[in-house]
């Protein structure tokens, strides 16, 4: 199937000489939730801004829904909704007017019934006649989403949607994003909250210093996540792993003080009980134990550090 967004050799160097994006290739599949992960200043917003027409690319091309975002900007942009990172709103407009404005701007005929539905879905209906300036930050964020959805886009960009958002709104937003995906909307979100990507995304892309260093199905990443480790702090150091423990996936630290057991958390049996019984039989005492999980965060930090 043709990707809904097709980024080819896209790069951006700002007038200051700062290279925000090195040549990037990225294909977004229709109907997926794609999370773009990366630290601040990695190029996430630049990439989104180019696709949406806010920043001009230095080189390369982007197709959105099969339309070049520069040459056929009208066809491309009318399918895209953007929720920017910053809460920039027209303070003196009412919620209803500002959302209706967005719909008109994107070339759609007025449809009060649809706007009503969007506002209700986002729990904004009671605020429809309130001026933007009177709303809380969370409410403003909801209005930004309503504006982006006002013209029924096929592609939705959420740039750091949950930055500075309380738990309730965060949960609402995730529910909404899932409902949108169920209705066939493709969603691209950027975040530096890894748990968010973990919770929401079908696929994850990691971007750092303008380079896309990994694009993978979340499920595959989760396999790497599924690895857990049990670390045993020994009472007295061992010179080598005793023969009696062969067959267990064990590693001994260089100083002989720590035994590290790696297991699959997803598996039916972790094998911890067997291992601990075996250790007791062999008379190997330990003074402390802890288990740890390699998280997306670790993978991410490793990846980012590798490239540094």
């Amino acid at each position, binding site marked *: 199937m043709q990707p809904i967004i097709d980024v080819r050799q896209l790069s951006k160097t700002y007038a200051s000489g700062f290279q925000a994006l090195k040549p990037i290739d990225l294909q977004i599949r229709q109907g997926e939730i794609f999370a773009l992960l990366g630290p601040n200043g990695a190029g996430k917003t630049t990439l989104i*801004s180019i696709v949406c027409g*806010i920043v*001009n690319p230095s080189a390369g091309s982007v197709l959105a829904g099969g339309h070049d975002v520069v040459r056929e900007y009208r*066809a491309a942009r009318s399918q895209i909704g953007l929720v*920017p990172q910053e809460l920039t709103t027209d303070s003196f*407009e009412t919620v209803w007017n500002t959302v209706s404005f967005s719909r008109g701007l994107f070339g759609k005929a007025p449809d009060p019934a649809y706007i009503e539905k969007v506002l209700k879905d986002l729990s904004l209906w009671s605020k429809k006649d309130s001026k933007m300036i009177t709303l809380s930050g969370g409410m403003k964020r909801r209005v930004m989403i309503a504006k982006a959805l006002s013209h029924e886009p096929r592609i939705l960009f959420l740039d750091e949607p949950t930055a500075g958002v309380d738990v309730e709104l965060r949960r609402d937003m995730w529910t909404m994003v899932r409902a949108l995906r169920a209705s066939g909307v493709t969603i691209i979100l950027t975040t530096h909250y890894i748990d968010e990507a973990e919770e929401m995304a079908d696929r994850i892309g990691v971007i750092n210093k303008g380079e896309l260093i990994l694009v993978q199905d979340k499920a595959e990443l989760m396999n790497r996540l599924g690895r857990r480790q049990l670390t045993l702090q020994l009472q007295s150091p061992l010179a080598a792993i005793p023969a009696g423990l062969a067959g267990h996936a064990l590693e001994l630290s260089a100083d002989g003080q720590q035994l590290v057991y790696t297991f699959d958390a997803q598996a039916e049996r972790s094998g911890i009980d067997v291992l601990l019984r075996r250790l007791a039989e062999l008379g190997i005492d330990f003074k402390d134990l802890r288990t740890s999980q390699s998280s997306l965060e670790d993978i991410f930090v490793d990846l980012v550090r590798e490239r540094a």
Partner: protein
Amino acid sequence: MNIHGIRAIYRFEMARTRRTLLQSIVSPVISTSLYFVVFGAAIGAHMNGIDGVSYGAFIVPGLIMLSLLTQSISNASFGIYFPKFVGTIYEILSAPVSPFEIVAGYVGAAASKSIILGTIILATARLFVTFEIAHPLWMVAFLVLTAVTFSLFGFIIGIWADNFEKLQLVPLLIVTPLTFLGGSFYSIHMLSPLWQKVTLFNPVVYLISGFRWSFYGVSDVGVGISLGMTLVFLGICLGLVWWIFRSGYRLKA
């Protein structure tokens, strides 16, 4: 053509006018009324008419032009500067609207507002002095043409300005002096021959002269030249706007 987009921008801008009614409409009307009271009624009563027109009536077209120019520029420059300033411009840039549609929305709204304002001032003036309009169609044509041209000029200033100071700078330092020296309050024939020549470099002279001709059938320069100069200025502004959108100047990184 994204008609809904043009309408959205136009209506948004007109809503802004309604919200700031006092500032947008009432204050220019009050200040213009003061001009009439001082120059028209109080001082004008002691002055001879110019070109056979009473002084009070003579300044009517100039005063309307004065408001038209300053208001067109400030309406249009603020209209596009403010979204840039608060960041809401992102939505305009990411929308499927062409540069022409953006300009039509913003400049159309600014010009409409100026035309409404000009009409109100004209009606206000009628309360102070009596005058007749010799060429009403031409009067409307000059009014509309000037409003559109200077709204375009204001749009350019709004894009160029990256702080509030610059936004005020051009109207204050250039447009107001040019308008005062452009024959709002006098006929350029009253100047010495040298200054008459110098004044011809002031584009506002042509606007006021043409506009006054549509009222009283007398003018400082030929009406054809007035019209031509106005169109030239319109052309220059259109060219600049075209370049702005082509290059993304001060709009896109």
